């Protein structure tokens, strides 16, 4: 799965994007965030305040209980501030 990071999340993780194979126990967005947080300190720093993290799957905003089964691209970012 292609994982994109934006704004402060991108800066803390130090990457704009990467490919990550979903572990078998990861089903929802929430599971995926927990998996990343447990993976390495930089993910913990960027993502542990989950309330402040927003997610888009295949370019559509989704909630944390969204099931990732058919997701090819997931984007992880802070609240948007355009306009």
């Amino acid at each position, binding site marked *: 799965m292609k994982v994109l990071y934006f*704004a402060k999340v991108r800066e803390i993780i130090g990457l704009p994007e990467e490919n990550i194979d979903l572990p078998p126990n990861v089903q929802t967005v929430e599971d995926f965030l927990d998996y990343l947080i447990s993976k390495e300190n930089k993910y913990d720093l960027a993502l542990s305040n989950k309330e402040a*993290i927003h997610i*888009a799957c295949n*370019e559509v905003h989704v909630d944390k209980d969204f099931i990732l089964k058919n997701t090819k691209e997931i*984007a992880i*970012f802070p*609240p*948007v501030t*355009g*306009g």
Partner: protein
Amino acid sequence: MITIKIQKEKFNSQKILKNAEKDKKYGALVSFIGSVREETNNGKVKKLFIEHYKNMAEKIIYKTALDAEKKWNLDYCYIIHRYGTLKAGESIVMVITCSKHRKEAYAANQYIIDWLKINAPFWKKEIFENESKWVDQTL
């Protein structure tokens, strides 16, 4: 008619407005421009960096314009949003809505900019003399 532009380059709001005004059948035209403020709560802004998620931003802005067009029966809708590094005072976004009557044009314009602000994937980083800070990002 809906036109969406997302670009790095500056835009000429007078030229865009003149183009929109060419067709006088509308009756009402409302135009909104959002610019880089020179002073915010965090201090004097030198520049503003805007990051975006290209494909998703295009989709969301187009969908917003389409919803507004249907809801308020718009004849014309033009939305332009910039990304990259902008100087204080430069325009970030422009929204033009045209309809037969002013009520619809005003309502649609406000709907578009309000919806865009909370949904379109753009992120602003204010650059000051000695530091820079993402807007509203407490992680």
